[in-house]
């Protein structure tokens, strides 16, 4: 198995390293870079808990090979807050109690962040549709949807 050299940006920081081609992006994030906010669960693209932004679009990182991200830009949940200050969406999750066990929270923050950037005034249905790919087994969807909608209302 031939290791491949890849260069990419993660949360604004440029990295170059060598990876084995049978490693996933999820592995790269959690095990190589030790960013544990991105969660590993089903590893078959069903639960969406490993969702990160790849070149600005949400992807399930368990279904992407690490070698594929050469030349790309990745944002994980650790990259949302700036200088230790939470984003309005992250604050809204706290205010709405939009988490129970918290295991799905990073993925919902990533998808929520992407949705708001792309569509600053989504309808409730649009929020629900965007969240389809992420599962919360505590079934706390209502507060998650409310948290996202609260941000879209306050920001004009």
């Amino acid at each position, binding site marked *: *198995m*031939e290791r*491949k050299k890849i260069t990419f940006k993660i949360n604004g920081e440029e990295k170059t390293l060598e990876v*084995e*081609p*049978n*490693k*996933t992006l999820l592995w790269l994030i959690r095990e190589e870079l030790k960013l544990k906010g991105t969660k590993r669960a089903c*590893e*078959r*693209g*069903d639960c*969406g808990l490993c*969702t990160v932004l790849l070149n600005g*679009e*949400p*992807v*399930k990182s*368990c*279904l*992407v*090979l690490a*070698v*594929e991200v050469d030349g790309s830009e990745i944002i994980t949940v650790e990259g949302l807050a700036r200088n230790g200050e939470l984003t309005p969406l992250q604050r809204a999750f706290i205010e709405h109690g939009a988490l129970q066990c918290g295991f799905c929270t990073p993925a919902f923050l990533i*998808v929520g962040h992407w949705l708001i950037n792309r569509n600053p005034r989504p309808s409730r249905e649009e929020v629900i*549709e*965007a969240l*389809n*790919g*992420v599962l919360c087994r505590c079934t706390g969807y209502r507060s998650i949807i409310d948290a996202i909608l609260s941000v879209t209302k306050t920001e004009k």
Partner: protein
Amino acid sequence: MLPKLDYSSPRTLGELLELLDRYKDQAKILAGGTDLIVSLREKLEKPKYIIDIKKIPELGKLEYREGEGLTIGATVTFKNILENPVIKDRYSVLWEAVKTIGDMVLRNRATLVGNICTASPAGDSSPALLVLNARVKIVSKEGSREIPLENFFTGVKKTVLKPWEMVKEVLVPEPPKKSFGRYLKMMRVRSEDLSVVGVAGLGYREGGEIKIRLAFSSVAPTPLRVKEAEEAFAKPGPIEEKIERAVQVAVEKVSPISDVRGSAEYRLNLVRVLTRRLLKQLVEVV
């Protein structure tokens, strides 16, 4: 953990076909990865080589030409398809079917050509492409050939593709004038599920007479066009009778199995209910 493998990402189609010719069945093509990486992890596929085709620009072609139709390249994602206004407008059955696949995040990566090459009986894009008379352009180092999608599937997850061949693009002809298509899909939950039964239909008029095309997912070893049911609309008679006749023939022609998503009996009933519902909608519009 995925099995050991080597990875390459050719920059041209020629380079890719050269690699395929060299590695043959030891290689698998990687586009969106949403099926392949799951198969690797579950050891259903054990290729020595993965060939990533996303860096080949010509495979990203998504082009519509008035009168000729649509070309969908091997790396075109479902997201690309849903964002295309021509597909939404003129190929509504395809747009609707794609909209039911997985979820928004998955559709950012998953490709249409990957969906047909996986050749799952539950593939949602295939019934839609079947009623649109789609053709498959297959290429290899030796040359290229074009076949109707109907002849592409040979069994559960099996296709006519030889190990050194690949699907370069799917060609979807211009649909009949003023045609209207829909895809109805029964799932166990509201999103992110395979179909229990899916049915695609296209309705149009020819010489004033209503014509229908019908195809199904999850009721046979392959996605299935049921032309015998379509013939119900070739004979004269009241439209209600044609619909009932088509429903009856469709139920006779499908051969569903029982699995985790539903029993064979339930599926047969769904074929009856969904086909009738779909045909009524189509004849009302066209």
